[in-house]
């Protein structure tokens, strides 16, 4: 998988295909036979009240749930561009290279901006010679893609942790790009940001879409509405409804969806 030239995803392909996935934390069942198809190059929002399993589902796609230990048990199948993620022979390092993740709180590494952006690339290209020029190109491309280049181009060797939260979060996206992930998972990426920064980050999602498939968890329904093409609503570990965003919000099929988006619980 790593060696293939990344083809431009065709929209009719499923980038993520979740099939009858159930997940247990010990004896607690967090997901119940969840199905979800995410179109390649699209932005899909996962919404639902706290504890509905949306973050759990997101974290299953690159298997960082497993960090919690062997008491996490997953059944069913999750495929990324047709490749089984849960198979025994999956190398987690490669999976996480292809399926990047952005967290609630920006978590830049305590390195320079430059080293942050190139970190993953250096890890995955360890042993190969990468020239300074190549690195500079990757750096500029990634930072331009997240609309951060003009802000930081004069202090690329400055500490990343000195940036504003908005810039830090953009940087956390930028550092995924040099290794050309297929999918970017975002777990409430704007919850630590102020409204303006949130706005900027949502704008960025539209820039990245197409080249990357984005699956974003949000508890902010306005955000799901503004910044996604499709929305999936989950409740109590079950997938309730998954449709194009405008349809889901205007004419929900399920009563639970309607109740939730009207704010009757959540």
């Amino acid at each position, binding site marked *: 998988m790593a060696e293939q030239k990344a083809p431009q995803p065709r929209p009719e392909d499923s980038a993520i295909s979740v099939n009858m996935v159930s997940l247990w934390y010990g004896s607690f069942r967090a997901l119940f036979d969840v199905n979800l198809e995410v179109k390649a190059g699209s932005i899909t929002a996962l919404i639902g009240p706290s504890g509905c399993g949306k973050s759990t589902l997101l974290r299953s796609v690159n298997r960082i749930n497993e960090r919690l230990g062997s008491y996490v048990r997953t059944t069913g199948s999750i495929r990324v561009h047709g490749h089984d993620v849960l198979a025994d022979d999956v190398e987690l390092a490669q999976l996480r290279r292809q399926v990047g993740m952005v967290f609630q709180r920006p*978590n830049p*590494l*305590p390195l320079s901006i430059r080293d942050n952006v190139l*970190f993953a690339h250096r*890890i995955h290209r360890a042993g190969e010679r990468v020239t300074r020029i190549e690195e500079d190109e990757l750096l500029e491309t990634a930072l331009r893609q997240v609309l951060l280049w003009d802000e930081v181009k004069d202090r690329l060797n400055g500490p990343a*942790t000195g940036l504003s939260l908005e810039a830090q979060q953009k940087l956390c996206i930028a550092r995924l790009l040099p*290794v050309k992930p297929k999918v970017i998972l975002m777990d409430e990426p704007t919850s630590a940001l102020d409204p303006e920064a949130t706005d900027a980050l949502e704008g960025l999602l539209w820039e990245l879409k197409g080249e990357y498939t984005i699956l974003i968890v949000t508890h902010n329904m306005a955000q799901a509405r503004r910044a996604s093409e499709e929305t999936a609503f989950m409740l109590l570990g079950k997938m309730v409804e998954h449709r194009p965003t405008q349809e889901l919000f205007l004419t929900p099929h399920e009563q639970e969806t309607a109740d939730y988006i009207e704010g009757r619980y959540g």
Partner: protein
Amino acid sequence: MFQATALNERNRRVEFLFRVLFGLMTVLLVAPVLIILALLIREGGPAVSFDFLFTPPSDQGRQGGILFPLVGTIWLVVVALLASVPIGVAAAIYLSEYAPDNLLTRLINLAIINLAGVPSIVHALFGVGAFVVFFRFGISILAASLTLAIMTLPVVIVSTREALQAVPMAFREACWNMGATRWETIRRVVLPNAISGILTGVILEVSRSAGETAPIMFTGAVTFLPFLPAGVLEPTMAMSLHLFTISNSVPNMPDEIKFGTALVLISMVLLMNAASIAFRMYLRGKKKW
């Protein structure tokens, strides 16, 4: 409406009392250090000179300086450092970054804490049995330094582990989520950020071993030697044992020399501490968070 009540007045008095009490305790803590230093400088200061440092002792220490014990202590501390730092830091990295939290790990931690509590004379006897006799190093710098190293290992491990654990978990997770292995994470992110803490802890603890007498007196340090050691398999004089000897077993010893020797020993330790603190400040300045 806003006037102080009797209760407020009482609270204020109690507050004052505790503040003074805690302040006094702090002064009490610093006082012995200052008194010792002042005494040593007053009594031993005149004896300390360039010649004192660079002349070997003669006439059982009544004449001459302290060159041989001084060099001997540097030998002992450096060799002990070379032994304890790689082992201690590696063990701490394992325990902090790799070891699962299970019974075995907890037993190892317990053993480390207990090792720190072993009296130094017991370490000395272990050193005799293990290094002098069993490994046939004889009474030598190597045997003494290894004994010192074993004695300082627990503190090196504990201080290193603390420095590693002071690096926020979020950094590690960020690395792992980009597909970095544990070692890549440690090498690129954890160690660079923990190194100042590690070095400080290590130097502080090892410099303390410069003053130890018991662990070296049966394993490598001798009371008098007319020459400098040529290698690690030879015995040596050492500052702590030399001070013990001239204070205890040599009649008609000039006080000046005793105090001067003590002053040099304490200065060595303080100097190493100061260096480690300066080094930490330099590394902290370079820190990115």
